């Protein structure tokens, strides 16, 4: 007999009350949470909604909360969920009554925290993108296609590499500040701001502008140094450390 894995999944249709539904998925070696979700969508309920794209932890689409830990569905092995060491000191995420969750047996899947839920595991990321745009995350110089390219030392390029790896998955919005302050720019936008502040190729003028943006009331000053962002980041971007570095090196008054 094929062994099954039980799931308890958050479901909600727009304008309807949330509920939790139970599913059983045949276990398969190497199966990820994303594959399990597809099994449910393909075989059990085609209306189950969740975002996805690359299935290789590079596109940032499939962020969900698995057993109360925010993570990428594609990067999480079903077999590992119960055994995995959870990141310490995560905030509590509440979506509804789960008093009948059989924690030892059932994998609980819920949407990203601190965002409006549109349907099932799909959340409204518009505020996330809006705050991302707010820090003006780009180089502002005129494009040029004439040789040679502008030079940058290898060390300088490497110094922002980990920040560049951000896949904009939104997991760091599990930050407790995001839970209470709907206007908080959030760790993603601030780390993205720092990626450009710290890029040696940016103009002084645009750097000043980004510094101004990240130092607004709902930016760096609102960060309460929980470092939840660092602990849930699937790409080692360490947004909290980036915010710390903005504080240390790029204070507004300099």
């Amino acid at each position, binding site marked *: 007999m094929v062994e099954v894995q039980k799931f308890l999944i958050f479901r909600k249709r727009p304008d309807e009350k949330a509920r939790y539904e139970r599913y059983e998925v045949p276990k398969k070696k*190497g199966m990820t949470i994303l594959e399990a979700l597809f099994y449910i969508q393909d075989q059990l309920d085609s*209306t189950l909604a969740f975002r996805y794209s690359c299935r290789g932890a590079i*596109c*940032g689409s499939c962020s969900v909360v698995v057993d109360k830990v925010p993570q990428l569905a594609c990067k999480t092995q079903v077999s590992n969920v119960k055994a995995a060491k959870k990141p310490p000191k995560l905030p509590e995420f509440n979506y509804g009554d789960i008093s009948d969750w059989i924690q030892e047996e059932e994998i609980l899947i819920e949407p990203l925290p601190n965002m409006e839920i549109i349907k099932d595991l799909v959340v409204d990321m518009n505020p996330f993108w809006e705050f991302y745009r707010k820090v*003006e995350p780009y180089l502002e110089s005129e494009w*040029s296609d004439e040789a*040679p*390219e502008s030079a940058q030392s*290898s060390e300088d390029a490497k110094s*922002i590499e980990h920040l560049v790896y951000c896949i904009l998955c939104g997991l760091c919005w599990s930050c407790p500040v995001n839970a209470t302050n709907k206007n908080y720019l959030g760790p993603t936008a601030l780390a993205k701001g720092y990626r450009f502040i710290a890029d040696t190729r940016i103009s002084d003028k645009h750097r000043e502008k980004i510094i101004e943006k990240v130092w607004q009331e709902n930016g760096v000053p609102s960060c309460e140094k929980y470092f939840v962002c660092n602990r849930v980041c699937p790409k080692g971007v360490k947004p909290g450390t980036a915010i710390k570095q903005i504080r240390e090196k790029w204070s507004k008054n300099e």
Partner: protein
Amino acid sequence: MKVEKFDAIVVGAGLSGLRAALELSKKWKVAVISKVHPVRSHSGAAQGGINASLGNTLEGKDDTAERHAYDTVYGSDYLADQDVVQFMCEEAPKIVIEFESMGTPFSRLDSGLIAQRPFGGAGYPRTCYAADKTGHALLHTLYEQCIRKEVIFFDEFFLIDLIKVDDQITGILSMDMATGELIIFRSGYVILATGGFGRTYKRSTNAIINTGDGVGAAFRAGVPMQDCEFVQFHPTTLYGTNILITEGARGEGGYLFNNKKERFMKNVASKAMELAPRDIVARAIETEIQEGRGFENAYVHLDLTHLGAERIKERLPGIREICIDFAGIDPINEPIPVQPGQHYSMGGIATKFDGRYCETPLAGLYAVGETASISVHGANRLGGNSLLETSVFGRYIGRLLLEKGLAELPSIDKLEKAEEAAFTGIEDLFNQWNTNSGKRPVEIRDEMGIVLDTKVGVFRTEIALQEACDQLAALQKEFENVQIPTSEREFNFGILRNLELRNMIDIAAVTAYAALWRKESRGAHSRIDYPTRNDKEYLVHSLVFKTEDGLMLKTKPVKLGKFEIKERVY
């Protein structure tokens, strides 16, 4: 029925689409329609790099656009059109330098110039990179610039069908995925940049979203498909999930070993070894596995251990992460289990023989990137040339259309009639799916994938291809009776994935059909029963048309040029 009007519509927000939109938005009102948020596009998964004859390294200082073009044409097994290849290679240094000026965080040499690494089939270290996350770096750069330039995006809008009046494109029918509402985008210019269609195969490196929606829609609208028999199988995909392990891993010095601990590439490409082009390495690996020299009859080893921890961490951090997360092994200590898997569609929407690049036979419709076959890759694409193609031709198409000026649309009566027909056609189809009693989409999708994997794979034969054609035709028939509930419309991925299957099932059939027709071995198309290249009969592009009586194949000449046709040896 909601109708949005734009000067031009770009479908797809990967590198091709974003680059086209950036250019067009300078002057026009342009909509970018994408079924995923732009940074989720599959361009972001490209790892190894982008080719340009910058000549930044000591070993590469003599490199030129001409040599790049030669390698590309030679690598294509002479099926690429030489004029367009020449154009791309001349544009390459410019496009890479432009990316840098936009902010792309390239890896750097000690000189501070953009770093370049050797890649398969290239005479010089020509591949510019940002560690092993080049696609990600480029995609984010273009998206950032789109934000800066306030490009208009319709994220999570799904292209369902093209709308045309007579032989002119007039817009698209799309679904707003969040609400499920059908929306018309009206425009005299539609640029399809919807990527490849690797998900027709089960064993593929492609993102789950790579379902050829633009290609399927164009094909239904009467546009032929070109060279679809040429499917690139990437030699090194991670055993189990088939996630891509970049050619850069071999570019950095990785070895391929069989179960006898032999570097078997010496038997097929004694000079280039592991850095022979992808078709050759894929065949060599497949042969090792088939002849019992693989592991578990399924994979060989890609060994990086001799490169040392430092180099792996610096140059291939993403690969290390993938191996740890998805296979539980650390390439610093252990070899990586790899097998060939579908990776890239050299074929795609046909473009005209005469006229401008990317122009399709349907007036106002353009295709760019992996969606198109224009054709720079011919029978085999070189690594590092696809990122290049996207942005070179994205920019090109933008400039071309601005130069041509705004399109004139047919009369409003005709437009509305065509839009109405598209709209009601899809509503009827949804109703039909809701009441059908046939197979569920997953059953058809799985069968299609297995047919392509097993019968239209690395090695092909007449018998297997004929079976594939028959089975795929049967699946197309079954798809007419596919059942899926369609009453709930908000974010209903069941419906969306069935619309994707509607596209894939046609493309899969075209792939097998063209592969059956081509009785020779060229590039990625390897026929056991016709093991050699046959220039006399087959140095031509295949064009497959959809007709009332089924598929029909015509040929189109290849644009030859100064590179003399030779045997391809590495």
